[in-house]
């Protein structure tokens, strides 16, 4: 154990040292000795940065919703199940065996997330296969959070019980709205009755951590209709609630049909009013608004999703899934057949993903973008430790006008030094993109580094 740890340390030391230096010479950032030291000191932290989370993408759906641009296979596709799951298992095995070979001991998994698509469409046997293949290489922590997305109308009590028996302890239910006309308009495959049925079924099956997804800013959705959905959601007493403002994607039927802020979509002001209502009402009911679109009862915040926002590493398996391992952010092919080919190639490369590592600067950008999505925001101290004093100062300076305008909440220590910055709820959250751009423009995206950035992409 001891010897393996030393080896691991040595490797990460060399690894980080080289990336940091090459990046900085390319960037022409002034390189100070303190910075070198910090790189050394960071090694200790980083050596434990092996993923403790897994995301598995199950693309099958009864039909594709009109706003959805995920990699989804809609319609009857049960003939693909066997094949697809076998490739996922192959990918898991070759990836994890690579990590096992390289690091000997892998940390216990803390979260596993089955997303989609509609994972609840799959017979539980397939979920079991996947979990078993994971367990071959990696232990599950005793308090592992095992989430499955389940849509109303795709399961009954016996299936819910099977999931529960498998160890699934958190279910995210795609409700979107309690208004039947809206559900139909969005191309959802269920109605509001089925929502209540699904909810009762899950509770009966024994689930004590349920999450509910809602959407705002839908076509023809008035503030009243949205308020009604929120109240109905509250009456179901979920432990966790996600409430997303509609994002128009060009490739979707909605994206082709509608224009943001233009009728029948609610205007910018109306959509903002919905967001503000959700934030105020849910906080009033004891939810913590811990991320832009996520609310949870205390102790029921999504552990898995926080991994993303804290910019920690995670495994990803299945089509279109993204993984973030060894500082490599990699997205898998979005098409079924090209994914199969890719898995075969992965096996030939002994499970190592071919993808450039994120530069220190990119990591800093990610940390900022993701960290500011959360209520807790970013610790200036940690940011400075990881990415250097210069960048951290630039960010602080750029944040100043926003603090004054009440969009950013600054937390100071007793010496009057800024310790933490976070977006104000709800004003700051609503303007997140504008705020991020202004922060990045004055720090990480200043001229010399943005050029570098472009060359990379």
């Amino acid at each position, binding site marked *: 154990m001891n010897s393996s740890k030393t080896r691991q340390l040595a490797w990460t030391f060399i690894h980080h040292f080289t990336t940091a230096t090459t990046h900085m010479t390319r960037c022409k950032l002034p390189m100070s000795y303190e910075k070198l030291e910090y790189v050394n000191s960071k090694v200790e932290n980083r050596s434990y940065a092996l993923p403790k989370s897994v*995301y598995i993408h199950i693309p099958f759906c009864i039909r594709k919703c009109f706003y959805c641009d995920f990699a989804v296979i809609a319609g009857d596709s049960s003939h693909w199940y066997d094949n697809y799951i076998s490739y996922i298992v192959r990918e898991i095995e070759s990836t994890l065996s690579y990590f096992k070979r390289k690091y000997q001991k892998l940390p216990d998994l803390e979260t596993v997330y089955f*997303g989609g698509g509609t994972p609840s469409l799959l017979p539980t046997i397939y979920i079991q296969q996947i979990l078993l293949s994971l367990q071959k290489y990696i232990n599950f922590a005793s308090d592992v959070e095992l989430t499955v997305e389940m849509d109303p109308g795709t399961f009954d009590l016996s299936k819910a019980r099977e999931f529960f028996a498998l160890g699934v302890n958190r279910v995210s239910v795609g409700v979107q709205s309690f208004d039947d006309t809206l559900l139909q308009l969005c191309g959802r495959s269920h109605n509001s009755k089925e929502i209540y049925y699904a909810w009762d079924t899950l509770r009966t099956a024994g689930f004590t951590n349920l999450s509910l997804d809602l959407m705002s800013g839908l076509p023809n959705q008035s503030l009243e209709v949205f308020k009604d959905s929120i109240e109905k959601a509250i009456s179901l007493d979920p432990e966790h609630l996600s409430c*997303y*403002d*509609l*994002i128009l994607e060009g490739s979707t039927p909605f994206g082709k049909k509608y224009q943001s802020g233009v009728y029948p979509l609610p205007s*910018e*002001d109306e*959509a*903002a009013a919905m*967001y503000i209502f959700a934030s105020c009402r849910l906080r009033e009911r004891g939810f913590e608004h811990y991320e*832009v*679109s996520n609310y949870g009862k205390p102790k029921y915040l999504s552990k898995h*999703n926080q991994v*993303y*926002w804290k910019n920690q590493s*995670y495994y*990803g398996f299945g089509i*279109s*899934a*993204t*993984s*973030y391992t060894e500082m490599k*952010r990699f*997205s898998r092919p979005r098409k079924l057949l090209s994914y199969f080919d890719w898995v075969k190639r992965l096996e030939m490369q002994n499970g190592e993903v071919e993808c450039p590592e994120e530069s220190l600067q990119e990591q800093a*950008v*990610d940390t900022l*973008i*993701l960290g500011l*999505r959360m209520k807790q925001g970013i610790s200036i101290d940690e940011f400075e430790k990881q990415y250097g004093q210069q960048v951290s100062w630039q960010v602080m300076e750029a944040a100043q006008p926003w603090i004054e*305008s009440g*969009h950013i909440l600054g937390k100071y220590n007793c010496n009057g030094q800024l310790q933490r910055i976070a977006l104000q709820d709800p004003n700051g*959250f*609503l*303007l*997140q*993109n*504008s705020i*991020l*751009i202004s922060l*990045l*423009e004055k720090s990480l*995206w200043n001229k010399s580094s943005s050029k570098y*950035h472009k060359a990379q*992409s």
Partner: protein
Amino acid sequence: MSLFRCKSLSQKLCFYHWIDWRKLCSYVPPDIQKGLSASQRASTNFLSVDNNKPVDKEYIRNFSIIAHVDHGKSTLADRLLQFTGTIAPEKFRDQYLDNMDIERERGITIKMRATRLWYRSKDGSCYLLNLIDTPGHVDFSYEVSRSLAAVEGCLLVVDASQGVQAQTIANVDLALENNLEIVPVLNKVDLATAEPDKVCQEISQVIGIDASRAVRASAKFGIGVEEILEEIVHLIPPPQGQVDAPLQALIFDSYFDPYRGVVVFIRVRNGEIRTGMKVKFMATGVEHVVEQVGILTPDEVVRTSGVLSCGEVGFIKAGIKSLHDAPVGDTITGCDNPTQSPLKGYKPAKSMVFCGLYPADSSVLFENLRSALEKLSLNDSSISFQPESSSVLGKGFRVGFLGMLHMEVVKERLKREYELELLTSAPSVVYKFRNLKGEYFMESNPSKIPNDARHFEEPYVKLDIVCPDQYNGTILDLCQNHRASLEDMRYVSKGRILLKFLIPLAEVLTNFYDQVKSRTRGFGSMDYEFHSYRSSDLVKLDIAVAGDVVEGLSCVVHRDQAYSKGKEIIEKLKKYIPRHQFKVVLQAMISAKVIASDFIQPLRKDVLAKCYGGDVSRKKKLLERQKEGKEKLRQLGKVRLSPEAFAAVVAQKF
């Protein structure tokens, strides 16, 4: 057009047919030779002409063609060129004399052109006709007046279906001022709607010249061309002047050639001009040695004999480097035997409309714009410009134009010939005003007019509108809304009226012409010319965006219109300015007193709702795109807006 082609083809066919026939018979009977059409007579004549020899002035006729726009001036010129065999058939193209790209595209004449035609008339003698083609559009009436000063007579072309139009009257007035012989021609008699008798009556009635002899022609089909030439020969007097008198030559045009320097087009009134002669430009006092003289056929042909004699039209080259040394309208005389009195010149063209031209983005340097304008003004002396800087648009030029069409043409030429993308500020006129101390100022840039300016005066123009009388009411209404006062109203013929107004030039600059056209269903025509400066109750309207007065948006308006104009600008700004993080207040003010205001709500929502594992890189790309868009934005006071919106706002083209 295609009809015309058929016709000319058939003409050609006839001609070739005749040749073939002659070849076949290899014998030309004398009666057929006698019956040669005039075109063959002329072209045979043309071949034997020696361009180098001066022509006896008894056989010279100098004339130009005047007409309302689109009455067929350039087409008639084409026919004259073809008929007299001036241009070889294979070289011919429509609107031969219009050789600027813009002219050919828009079907308008911008620059006048001169050419000589040889014509053997029915009486058997051979005449040299010097034709000066002129532009028809209002903006270029200055060019018309220049060409009229160089000739003895003119063809007045009137569309037989449309009758006398506003510019017909304006041009005839110009011709009468110059004591020219006017030869009326009724064009387009082939049209089904042609009413030649009625139009003849109109000409007699409105213009006061006898139109009973007017040639009924169709330039499109070449009908009546020979009659027109006969009329020219018989009605237009030969040039006056003495060959042995001291040299007097009028400069009626000039242009700058980068390889040859300034080429000056002249009409010799008295005496003769020779190569090697030392000449003096009387207005500027500059002296030059003539290097080349030549004639226009319409290509420039250098005369080896080196003489241009009394009554002739041609060009000279004398190593002149700047157009300002040889201003149009000046008189050239010999240094050895100078004339005492210069010819009556004409007033230099006065810029009526001004606007700021600025590089559209910083990649186009101010210096490039300067050199482009300088080069352009070498060929178009009616452009005036001076550097100007604006806090909104940066460094640029304030450029004066003859009118709106001229402005468009210049902008188009800058874009095409010099590849400059430009932003223009709203066009304005030159205002006269006094400050508190009573000192007089003239300024065209509204943002430079101080807040204490008072006693405004603005240029008024005489506006003539000719239209069918059923549109009388709507035109009167339009003019009333544009602060015009009716001066005169009379019937041109049964059912058509001529309305004369005095109207501020600034009112005509906007979309007035389009309004006239649309209100009269296209039947109305208008023409205007500068009248005088008159005092007006004008105020300077400032526009403040987010609390700052944006100088590029200021304008001068009549007090009665201030509120509606202010409201209008603000509404348009509201449309174009995107939401900002703060509330943007828009105000229209007269010397710091707000008369209209509105605001733009602050940005409410700019957030990506979902961001999970797979979305990180996408989100980053999205932010980068958003940032790139932001970098392109232009600053307008405290607010930023897209380049397109910015251009629309500063040009106040909404």
